[in-house]
């Protein structure tokens, strides 16, 4: 695992409340340079809320989030300049073309125009979107939108990449491509944090894994560390179900009998 000691993503006592409802409570973790950090949890556990707080899309109710040492709330420009984000739903300007969107993002990050042109062409080629580059995004399939969203996040070569369910809606080939790209980015020293429902992806790709349940981080560590704290479970699926609702799973099995 090519990590070093620099913590590029830090959550310190991070919490978010919506009125009386606690969405995330006292989350503490770090993601280091060169590391792929998986964020798992059942639906509504608080994964997206946590990621949005890290990126600066949501204001935390408690605690702080730091990106590359910059507090996302008090130093947002510095923190956002080194961070790339892919949301769970690729809401993109439907009436822009893929190329126009990437140029727009390049301008937002104040990249050199020549660099934007070069990176745009590279990324469109990498994600096999070259032939659709001048089509409006409204005509893209979900997978194509997901890919252009990832291309936008990679355009400024970020040292921190935060992805919310990046492989949802992708065909196996595109999902594999994204996995390979993420591994290469991590090897170049970037910190990657991704949430996923697909435990196989987390198991194969992630150097460390955190499991969130009902807003609380209930486990964090490498797969071996999670296994050693469990009751002899071998697979991540067993560990996950044990921690987040094995009993409910048993009930479902009963119903299906």
């Amino acid at each position, binding site marked *: 695992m090519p990590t070093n000691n620099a913590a590029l993503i830090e959550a310190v006592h991070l919490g978010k*409340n*919506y*009125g009386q409802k606690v969405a995330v409570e006292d989350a503490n973790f770090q993601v280091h340079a060169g590391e792929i950090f998986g964020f798992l949890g059942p639906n509504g556990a608080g994964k997206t809320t946590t990621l949005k707080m890290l*990126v*600066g*899309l*949501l*204001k935390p*109710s408690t605690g702080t989030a730091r990106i590359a040492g910059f507090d996302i709330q008090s130093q*947002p*420009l*510095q923190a*956002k*300049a080194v*961070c790339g*984000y892919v*949301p769970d*739903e690729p*809401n*993109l*300007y439907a*009436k*822009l*073309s893929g*190329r*126009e969107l990437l*140029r*727009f*993002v390049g*301008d*937002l*990050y*104040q990249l050199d125009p020549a660099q934007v042109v070069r990176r745009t062409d590279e990324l469109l080629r990498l994600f096999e979107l070259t032939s*659709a580059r*001048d*089509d*409006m995004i*409204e*005509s*893209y*399939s979900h997978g194509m939108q997901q890919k252009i969203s990832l291309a*936008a996040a990679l355009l400024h070569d970020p040292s921190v990449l935060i992805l919310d369910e990046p492989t949802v809606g992708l065909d196996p080939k595109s999902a594999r491509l994204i996995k390979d790209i993420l591994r290469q980015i991590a090897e170049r020293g970037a910190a990657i944090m991704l949430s996923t429902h697909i435990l196989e992806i987390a198991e194969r790709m992630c150097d460390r894994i955190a499991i969130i349940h009902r807003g609380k981080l209930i486990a964090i560590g490498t797969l071996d560390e999670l296994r050693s704290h469990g009751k002899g479970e071998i697979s991540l699926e067993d560990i996950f179900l044990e921690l987040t609702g094995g009993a409910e799973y048993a009930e479902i099995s009963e119903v*299906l*009998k």
Partner: protein
Amino acid sequence: MIRAGARPLSSPGLWHSVWILLRMRLLLTWSNFRRAKPYQKIFQVIFLLFIVAVATGGFVFSQMLIRYLLSLTATTEIDLTRLFNALPGLVLALAFFFNLLTNFGGLLQALYLSRDMDFLVAAPLPMRAVFLSKLILAILPGFGLFCLAALPMLFGLGSASTYHPLYYPLVVIVLTFVALGAAGLAGVLVMAVVRVIPPRRVAEVLGFVGAVLSILISQSGNLLGTFDLRGDRLTGAINQINSFSPAWSPFSWAGRGLVDIGSGAWLSGAGLTLLTILVTGALFALTLASAEQLYYTGWAGLRTASHKAKTRVKRVSRERIVRRGRPLLATPLRSIIAKDFLLLRRDLRNLSQLITPLIFGFVLVFSSLRSESSDQPLSTLSIQDLPVYTNIAFTLFVGWMLLFNLATTAVAREGKNYWLLNAAPLRPAHLLWAKFIVALLPTLAVSWLFAGITAALRSIDLLDLGYVLLVTGLSFAGLNGILLAFSVVGSNMDAQDPRKIGLRGGLGCLSMVASLVYLAIGLALFLGPPVLVELLKTGSLEMGRLIGIIIGLIFTLLSAVLPLLALRQRVAMIGQPKD
């Protein structure tokens, strides 16, 4: 273990399926009402009572008016009986075309652009039931609105003419059948059109055409002149109205059937009414029969062809706009401006915002020129500069309409795409100034063009035109700052349709009041000194204008800058849910 095919499903009947789907909508409506806040419930009840009061008032008013007009027939030479006999036919014709036009858009949305289609198609329901339930739900609002206007009038006619009681239920039945026939035809048209043009494009074009048409219709009274109810003109008007309901028209037969039933001519009445019901019912049945195939194949075709209907964009357009502002503006700011102008231009529905002030402007110029050419004096005050001030007021009105739309929706237009700006290292000031420029430039272009044309028509000289442009330009800048502040504070970021985006809750109303108050104060500050100079005859007009410009300049610049400076910190809170 689940055993496939353990319990074979019997195919549900058409009407049972329709009832299931309609009941779901009823439950949703009831649930929304139950969960609403107490003040919202009270408002809804008051609104319902208001509708009942309007309908009752309409009925009483129609009854009294028709009785009065019928009494005129007895005492004067004007014969209104023909007009009243033709009224049901006219209303039915109007009902048909109103429902045909309004339902086209409603059905397009309900049949092809709603998000529940995957779920409904996957469910074991007859396709015809899905079509029928969607059709009923789509036509209900328009039909209800039409009935609110038409029923009091037709019932008033029945009461004033002492028609037989059978007339009243038959009016409702015939009206319903005519509306269903029109809706069925609209459904077939929608199903045919989306086979050629993508539904979203049709919706955009329809939105644009609908907006332009509604404004033109609303202003047609101003363009045509006042309605004079005297002597020959009234007879002419009656003949003109009657010409809309010629004897050969099926709607005339339907209307005559109702009148005959009301006045006791049973044979012809029953025959014509039955014929109407049969023809419209057959039209509707034909639609239902074709829906099974047309709707499903059309909808399924869209699913496979949606990614083929690609719109390629010109590669240079955005870069050209970005390059233009390079020496003056920061890159992110330029880029947002370029992006916003592209998006405004590419979505036809946005163009209706631009067209509205142009049509109003045209009507204003036309009306004012007509009133000037008549003998009526514009004002009893002897102000020499009155044409200039009138030009300023009209230009402000035209520009206000456009600016209000552009500025209050400036932030909300980002909608769910806002995350892209929010996740980028973008300074709040850049975002605000970009939005400021995007709202101001089209306003200045449209309103100044209007001011120029008006000045040419009224022979206002160039110096005065410059004064008009300066006063209006500064006023718009200040107004833009105030309206953008509302946009930052109260934008609803969930809406997708450009015609529906706007401010949350009462902020839309508040922003309108604030903008009118601002314009009134601004006008008083700009025009007060020169008007006083003219009225009191103390000093030169130029000096008065200069004083007005200096005071107005301070006021408008403060209005442009202060709200945005104060709200810079709020930019980070845009789109944030409440804690």
